[in-house]
């Protein structure tokens, strides 16, 4: 199956800009389906980015983060060709991870 994680990490000098989009329903637990039953909360709780074994960014998310969540940040100290490891875990214990090459 295709990864749920899309990443763009682009180095510009010493700063690397990272954008990630993750395929996830991010159900809030406040929405009802067509039959009127509450759709249980299902959302990513933590999303982590690591470069050379060092964490460079950690997101703690609640159900108010939009469906197919997006995040953008930047960090220093990486070079083109370095690898960035991205992983998430949700409130049901599901997880995914991937590695992206910095461009």
């Amino acid at each position: 199956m295709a990864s749920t994680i899309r990443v763009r990490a682009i180095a510009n000098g010493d700063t690397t800009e990272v954008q990630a989009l993750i395929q996830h329903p991010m159900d809030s637990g406040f929405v009802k389906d067509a039959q009127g039953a509450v759709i249980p909360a299902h959302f990513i709780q933590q999303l982590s980015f690591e470069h050379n074994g060092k964490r460079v960014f950690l997101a703690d998310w609640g159900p108010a983060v939009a469906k197919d969540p997006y995040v953008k940040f930047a960090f220093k100290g990486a070079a083109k060709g370095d690898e960035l490891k991205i992983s998430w875990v949700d409130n049901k214990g599901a997880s995914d991870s991937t590695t992206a090459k910095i461009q």
Partner: protein
Amino acid sequence: MRFVIALVSAALAASVIVSAAPASDAPDPAADAEAFRNYFVTKFPKVKLEDFVNGPYSMNKDMRRQWQEKEEFPPYEFALEAGKEMFAAPFKNGKTYADCFENGGIGVRQNFPYFDAKQGEVITLELALNRCRTANGEAPLSYVKDEMASLTAYMAFTSRGKPFDIKIPDDPRALAAYENGKRYFYTRRGQLNFSCASCHVQSPGERLRAEILAPALGILNAMPIYRSEWAGMGTISRRFITCNSQTRAVPEEAQSEDYRDLEYFLSYVSNGLPISGPGARP
């Protein structure tokens, strides 16, 4: 023009006018398209012609910024990838979608819909994709669900920037289809008594409840679209159906003759404007 002629006819002898009137009443798609484009360009002098394909985002600055933010990593990206995979996956008989289209289906979105002289009907991209499936022994896809939207998203993406190039051949049936689509566009219907034009010609840029109305010029160039309101993708079929139901009119079946003719008309009058799909919309 017609108005002018009517005035003139009141002033002059009828015999002079009779010969002029039929000519001006005959369907003239090229003149329609020019008048259509001029109407929008005049109404929105600050909007560049090719920007009309960006719908409500060409009309409102605050929304445009939100759109640019979305386009940094667009929400249709997953559909685009799914469509690319689907497009390449062979049918059970070993053939693929590419075998059904000119240039293997790459960069051809701007040529749809077209009038098929053999079948005597308008062929939209969505219809062509399903005819391709059935011709190869596969069940057709739903016109309003994700798979069809993913396929058209991919085909639009490979055609981005190419101007709509819709042709109306010298065939009375093609002209009739165009005229039927035009009639559908301007006819009021439903409990709210709205025509397509009530919103998308008279009121683009204005709010209808929470939404900013898109201009009809270029409105199909961005299809299919990811709508935040749908939290997912939608085809042209889906958009027409929901437009009808939002104005409390009875929607037609997806890919009905009226809808296909409407798509023919709307695409033709947007000739020259670039394909921008897949798009993201509120």
